[in-house]
């Protein structure tokens, strides 16, 4: 028994799955329902790459098989798990994308630039949300309330932005409202020791309720005075925005995308290389020890939770004044929960959370593309894809993750 269990370690199981999936891809996409038309990758406005889809798909499927075989035979060390998963699943996804495009009804051209641009746009609110989660949870407060914080941010951005006729005022109001929401979370979680999961859910309902009522009573009937904020204009980074492919994808956005990327860098640095970060992590892992060393546990938690709310509020504003659309009831549509999944998939690290958010964003952009060219995959299934990817990533790939040890446990001086 034990020898069987030892042989089938995580790498070998994954290897077997990759061999199977790779073979299926080769047989189905390459043989039984083969890609027919050539696929064109349009990299920039005037550079494109056209190739026969079928041989490329077969090669990609074989790459997945090869990675699987390697995992079964030689790469059994734990350290090989992550990159092999990336290569094997990445090849599979590309094979699927090329196959779907090749058999599409209308066009067989993949606009790479737009696909990646769309990925980043879809991922940005999730990055803000997940960073809010990092700030709270690293200090030991569970934040199920990200959804509500995003929502009040979107709401305040639109309302204040319209009333003051300044998107900047809207942005600040969005952050402040997110922080206020988080302050409620903090008071009940830290002072009154309420169960943090239940509390987060209740506060989400509160956010739906408040924004919903004001929307219906004030913003919807008088949209011109209260729900008509402008938009942050895109700012092209001089020089960088002219780089082929990368320029349009990365450097032609408005404030929010740059802000999200900057925050990822800043929070990573602060969390791992500053005194504040050390204290935050200490409080999240072992509050008693931190307290013994003279760190004010509750103060750190209050501060971090409220900072997290501010970040989530800014992210919410992207949905209204960042996109130039009006506020709408429950417009966050579950983004806060996907952000939570990204946080866990990213193992409570800012960079990991960002990559997880990008994965979701890519799945979303890819399903939109495949639906629009009428690929052979039913649209209902495609619409599910981003959520399936998230589920699969969190449940199948992450394996055992360790949250900060004191996450969700209120600290009572004893």
């Amino acid at each position, binding site marked *: 028994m034990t020898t069987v269990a030892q042989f089938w370690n995580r790498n070998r199981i994954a290897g077997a799955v990759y061999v199977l999936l790779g073979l299926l891809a080769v047989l189905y996409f390459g043989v039984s329902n083969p890609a027919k038309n050539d696929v064109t990758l349009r990299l920039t406005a005037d550079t494109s790459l056209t190739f026969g889809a079928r041989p490329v798909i077969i090669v990609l499927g074989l790459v997945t098989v090869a990675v699987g075989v390697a995992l079964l035979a030689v790469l059994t060390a734990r350290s090989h798990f992550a990159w092999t998963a990336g290569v094997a699943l990445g090849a599979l996804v590309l094979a699927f994308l090329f196959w779907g495009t090749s058999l599409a009804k209308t066009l067989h051209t993949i606009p790479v630039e737009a696909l990646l641009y769309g990925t980043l746009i879809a991922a940005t609110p999730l990055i803000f949300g997940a960073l809010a989660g990092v700030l709270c949870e690293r200090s030991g407060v569970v934040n199920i309330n990200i959804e509500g914080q995003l929502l009040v941010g979107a709401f305040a951005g639109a309302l204040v932005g319209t009333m003051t006729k300044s998107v900047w005022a809207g942005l600040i109001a969005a952050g402040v409202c997110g922080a206020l929401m988080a302050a409620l979370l903090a008071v009940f979680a830290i002072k009154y020791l309420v169960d943090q999961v239940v509390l987060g859910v209740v506060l989400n309902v509160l956010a739906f309720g408040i924004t919903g009522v004001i929307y219906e009573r004030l913003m919807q009937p008088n949209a011109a005075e209260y729900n008509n904020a402008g938009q942050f204009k895109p700012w092209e980074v001089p020089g960088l925005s002219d780089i082929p492919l990368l320029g349009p994808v990365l450097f032609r956005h408005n404030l929010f995308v740059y802000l999200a990327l900057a925050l990822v860098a800043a929070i990573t640095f602060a969390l791992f290389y500053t005194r504040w970060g050390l204290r935050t992590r200490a409080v999240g892992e072992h509050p008693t020890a931190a307290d013994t060393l003279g760190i004010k546990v509750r103060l750190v938690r209050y501060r971090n939770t409220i900072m997290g709310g501010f970040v989530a509020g800014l992210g919410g504003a992207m949905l209204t004044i960042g996109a130039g659309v009006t506020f709408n009831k429950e417009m966050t549509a579950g983004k806060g929960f996907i952000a939570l999944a990204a946080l866990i998939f990213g193992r409570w690290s800012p960079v990991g959370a960002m990559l997880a958010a990008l994965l979701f964003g890519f799945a979303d952009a890819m399903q939109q593309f495949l639906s*629009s060219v*009428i690929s052979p995959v039913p649209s209902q299934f495609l619409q599910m894809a981003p959520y399936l990817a998230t589920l699969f990533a969190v449940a199948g790939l992450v394996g055992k993750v360790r949250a900060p040890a004191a996450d969700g446990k209120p600290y009572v001086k004893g």
Partner: protein
Amino acid sequence: MRIVAVLAIGGLALSAAACGDKPSSNNGSSGNGKKYKACMVTDVGGIDDKSFNTSAWQGLQDAKAANGNIEIKYSASKAETDYQPNLNALVTEKCDLILAVGGLMTDATKAAAAANPAQKFAIIDSNIPAANVYSMQFNTAQAGFLAGYLAAGSSKSGKVATWGGLKIPPVTIFMDGFAEGVAHYNKVKSKTVAVLGWDNKSQEGLFAGSFTDQNKGKQLAEQLVAQGADVIMPVAGGAGLGTASAAQASGGKTSVIWVDADGCKSAAQYCDVFMTTVVKNIAGAVKDAVVAGADGKALTGAFTGVLGNNGVSLAPYNKFDSKVPAELKTEIDALKKDIVDGKIKIESPAQPK
């Protein structure tokens, strides 16, 4: 003692909440005597949905304006479970006509009509074959056909697009008509204008999964524009405003065909990107039905809104009036006549039978 107090307060709160839960209703007028009372039950979207509930209520108001002897009221449904109680409450109130708004209310209306054979009902977007139910449906594929032809004729890139809120017949019927219109243009002119976002043969296409998510509407528009589409028809209520916003940001490169009610009136801030609107004239049909009922005419059978009776139509070109070539306008007028005369058959499987 404390527990008792908590329970008492909790009980009070609950009973207060229960009072508040009564379906809200609103008397359009407080007439007495022998007035004709037309009542409607809204769908969950509510009276301000800027879509079919608003249009139906507008129809009732128009009817009242046309005939002072008509009294109107509505009951709002907050959930699908409210349909049946709301309909029953209106039966008790002795409304002369009870209007159910939306195909989701089909089963509830069928049951209420069977239980109250003497009561007159009407329903929008559904067909109930009962003697006391007047069914109103709209063949928007006919107007969508004209929109598709217009889009194909106006596109410079040779690619046009449509996308929907959800894959349900009242949505896909617009998209079917649009795709068939483009195909007709290609056939007549020997062109190859491509339709992104919907294939009427396989009934597959691009959907936002929402009628409210404007961000999604914007992202979809950006994707479609990146693939070359320069005319887009979103069939997704408020979510479509995201596409209008993206088109406005394009500075005239992308234009939008709106649906339901003339976009230059219902979403006037985007009027400069609306080429036209595929109009579904719910208000007109409701008004005509109520006025006829008040005049003592029997309301039975079914009404199908088509181009011929103005139940569906193509709105004015508004700000595109000077941009759409006169020749194309003439062709569209001729097409309209051909559809009315039955020379052109529309094949959408979502059409009302």
